[in-house]
């Protein structure tokens, strides 16, 4: 068991990569690429489940660590590990992978080898981002995660793939240039890329604070574009409306949000604290802005994109509220969003495959024709808008209550308006697509309801939504072990809000 624990993370990274190579080598016949990809993703899901099962919630710090030299000069280490924050994210990536393969099963008909190879490489890159503890290794996976996405958007774009792909790539690639300079600057000062070492060094305050401010800002900028935070969201709507469903589903949001807490707040707590008011403001604007724009979209992928901006802004709000409850809630909400989005992408993808349209106006009255699809869609919608007993509620509640108690009542109230708007655009979407009179499109096309493969993947996802809504402590217990303040040595650094939240009742038990 010890041997497994010491190598499991490497396996989780390597299995999708090996699958990608295998897909590339095998011939494109008899749906062989699909099956190999499905098997690979299932194996990596099983491997990733090893982590929470053997995760010791009594310990703080990183577990399943591997730390071996990779490149001598500069001193880059293959240093990976997970803590309470990242352990479930790795599982989430593992869970979304087979879902993505099933979604693409019928949707991707051409060049399946390239599609599944790149899809699997994307898995490797994403897991890598979540487990890398060496800044260069992290940067490597971070950049790598752009490439398959950009290529696949270009290859399978609905209307203007290359343009959307270029937009996506440049939006996320250019901010990573300052990130790299910042990482190099840190290395030049310390001679280390190691996250744990750097966290200690920076907390001892041996850095010129002026330069450190810019370094922290470079980190934040790269992450904020990826989330995306309000004024930097230009790429998301195009990406969602062009990208293959499976890719949009696995990529959205998680990477940037995780990186914010781990590498921005985690490495530069004082600097993050200094910009927190700005981010709180931007997050609330993003919540309302995204929700308002979602209300007026005619294309459901674009609607979803703006809905996602709104939802991720909630999480950003919680991250920069600097409360433990908020952080735990934020990470729980990242998981929730991942699961909910998987379902909603799958369902909308199924709709597009059946009716060949992404215009909401062309739908109507589908509930009678595809009742199972409609049922699942309604359940997912309810989870998304935060109905109690479903998972969206728990995360949203933690985020809003922590903001209300620990940050500012005004911002919390403003953000809550976003919840109402969220219910409005989602329910209106349901109404327009599934109820009302049957549209010409719905009458023309032969309707066939969800099929076995889709049901087989949707049912567990929906059950998971319910379980995560009823028994959140299963997850929150683990997440809490990762939520702690990075060491701060200066005197006035403990923000008042944190003192407030350390009292019992901060996190519901």
């Amino acid at each position, binding site marked *: 068991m010890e041997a497994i624990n010491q190598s499991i993370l490497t396996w989780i990274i390597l299995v999708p990569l090996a699958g990608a190579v295998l897909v590339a080598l095998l011939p494109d016949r008899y749906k062989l690429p699909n099956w190999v990809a499905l098997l690979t993703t299932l194996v990596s899901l099983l491997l990733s489940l090893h982590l929470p099962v053997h995760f010791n919630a009594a310990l703080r710090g990183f577990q399943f660590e591997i730390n071996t030299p990779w490149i001598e000069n500069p001193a880059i280490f293959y240093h990976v590990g997970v803590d309470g924050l990242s352990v479930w994210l790795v599982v989430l990536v593992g869970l979304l992978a087979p879902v993505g393969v099933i979604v693409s099963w019928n949707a991707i008909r051409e060049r399946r080898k390239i599609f599944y190879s790149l899809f699997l490489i994307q898995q490797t890159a994403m897991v890598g981002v979540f487990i890398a503890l060496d800044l260069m290794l992290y940067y490597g996976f971070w950049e790598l995660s752009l490439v398959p996405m950009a290529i696949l958007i270009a290859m399978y774009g609905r209307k203007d793939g290359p343009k959307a*792909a270029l937009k996506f790539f440049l939006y996320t690639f250019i901010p990573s240039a300052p990130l790299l300079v910042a990482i190099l600057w840190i290395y030049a000062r310390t001679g280390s890329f190691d996250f744990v070492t750097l966290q200690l060094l920076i907390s001892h305050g041996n850095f010129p604070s002026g330069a450190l401010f810019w370094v922290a800002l470079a980190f934040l900028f790269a992450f904020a574009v990826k989330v995306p935070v309000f004024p930097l969201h230009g790429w998301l709507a195009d990406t969602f409306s062009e990208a293959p469903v499976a890719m949009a589903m696995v990529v959205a949001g998680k990477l940037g949000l995780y990186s914010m807490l781990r590498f921005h707040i985690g490495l530069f707590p004082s600097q993050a604290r200094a910009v927190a008011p700005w981010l709180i403001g931007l997050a609330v604007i993003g919540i309302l802005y995204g929700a308002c724009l979602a209300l007026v979209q005619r294309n459901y992928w674009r609607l979803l994109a703006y809905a996602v901006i709104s939802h991720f802004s909630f999480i950003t709000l919680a991250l920069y509220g600097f409360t433990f409850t908020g952080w735990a809630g934020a990470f729980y909400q990242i998981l929730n969003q991942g699961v909910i989005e998987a379902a909603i992408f799958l369902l909308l993808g199924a709709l597009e495959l059946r009716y060949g349209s992404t215009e909401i106006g062309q739908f109507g009255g589908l509930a009678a024709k595809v009742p199972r699809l409609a049922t699942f869609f309604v359940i997912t919608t309810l989870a998304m808008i935060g109905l109690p007993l479903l998972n969206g509620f728990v995360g949203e509640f933690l985020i809003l209550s922590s903001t209300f108690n620990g940050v500012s009542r005004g911002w919390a109230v403003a953000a809550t308006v976003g919840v109402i708007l969220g219910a409005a655009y989602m329910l209106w979407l349901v109404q327009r697509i599934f109820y009302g009179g049957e549209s010409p499109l719905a009458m023309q096309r032969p309707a066939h309801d969800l099929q076995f493969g889709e049901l087989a993947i949707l049912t567990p996802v929906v059950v998971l939504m319910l379980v995560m809504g009823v028994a959140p402590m299963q997850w929150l217990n683990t997440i809490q072990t990762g939520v702690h303040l990075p060491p701060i040595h200066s005197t006035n650094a403990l923000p008042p809000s944190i003192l407030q939240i350390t009292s019992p009742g901060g996190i519901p038990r």
Partner: protein
Amino acid sequence: MTPVPDIYRILPEVILTLTGVAVMLIDATLGHAFPRRPLGWVAAIGTTLALWASLWQLSLPVGTGFYSTVETSPFTVFFHVLICGIVLVALLLTLDTLPEDSHHQGEFYALIVFGAVGMCLLTGAVELLVVFIALEISSISTYVLAGYRKDTGRGPEAAIKYFLLGSFATGFLLYGIALIFGATGTTQIYDVARLAPTAQNHAFVLAALGLMLVGILFKVSAAPFHVWTPDVYEGAPSPVVALLSTAPKTAAFALLLRVLYEMLPSLRSVWAPLLWIVAVLSMTIGNLAALRQQNVKRMLAYSSIAHAGYLLAAFAGLGSIGIAAAAFYTAAYSAMNVGVFAVVALVSGYDDKLPLIDDFRGLIYRSPLMGSLLLFFLVSLVGIPFTGGFFGKFYSFSAAVGGGAIALAIIGLLNSGISAGYYLRLALAAAQRDPQPDRAIAPSSQVGVAVGAALLLATAATLVLGIVPSATLHSAESAAHTLQVPPPEAAPLSVEAPIHP
């Protein structure tokens, strides 16, 4: 210690020369009907032998031969291996892409090999006149190769432009050498290095530095001496461009390193700012011009100008760090650039039937292998991690930051953001579904054994440099440490050796 026979010091060059002569003689004696393709294999085998001979030279003690005109050291071996590797890949590529009935196929292989002789000799020469001769050997071969498509208008145009401008540049270099001789009374690089700091005619040395820089920067196609590059790359056959854009540049960079770091390190305060400006100009002009290109080869030509700029950023690095970074960059750049031109050669063919970016649309659907490889090499040229391009840029800009040129690093990274724009335009066009699938598109050339090996070598090198760069970096570092003037044995002058630690 027994002295090393002089011939061992130039063993790779000797092997290459014999191979070239053999190829030419066989070509002349064979009947017209006989296929010339086997000659390419002879050349490839000769080049492989030369590569092994270079590696074997590592076991020789570091030192010079032929009256201190050529040197063998880890520095020369590093560049010999690199050049032989590039030439080998280019030969393998030519084997399958050169039309069988084409004009003077045998001479083609011989010229490539003779060019390699010059390039190898250039990296090993420590006597400025030998440097000049080596440069001429390599240049004349490449002038001919550039104009190999005589029947097209662009072929001769490319060759003539290259030849005229190249001769000019060589003239500059020769003037520089003459002035060096005037100032110091010698053309032996070690002696120049010892004498130059105390030379009477300091102005001569400065002028010589300037003239030699012009000559060498022309060869590496750095701005503002880059104007020939797009025309020549467009006119020359793609397999030749794969060679032209890498091997002579590699050799010229080796020469630049030798001249600046070994011969004139005392003038660092003069040449460092000059190269700073040239680096910024090359990156910016190269990238901005590439953004506007519709022709793939012209775009890649401007991209290679930009890469020369990234590489020159390493010269802001101090001493061996800068040398090692530059040496590593040449390796990474050569691997990915040979690769990308190999793909272009296969897709558009010897005759450049598909020259435009729009013609590459849907490549990944027509030919998944070529499409994927093109994407891979372009991703490496952008500088995404886990490819050679990333570590090349990484070390180059680290060296610049280490040498205090933080602004240069920031300009460089912003430039690589710009470069993503045009690399991706090509990559995404290739990934896109062809909007007019019924267009008559010439089928891509078949991937034979030789081309397969060439692509495999380029891909493997790019990946290895991106994932496990340590070994190459070690070689580059030991190369950097040997690039210095050996201590004077019986020098009458007690000049302090102006060597960086």
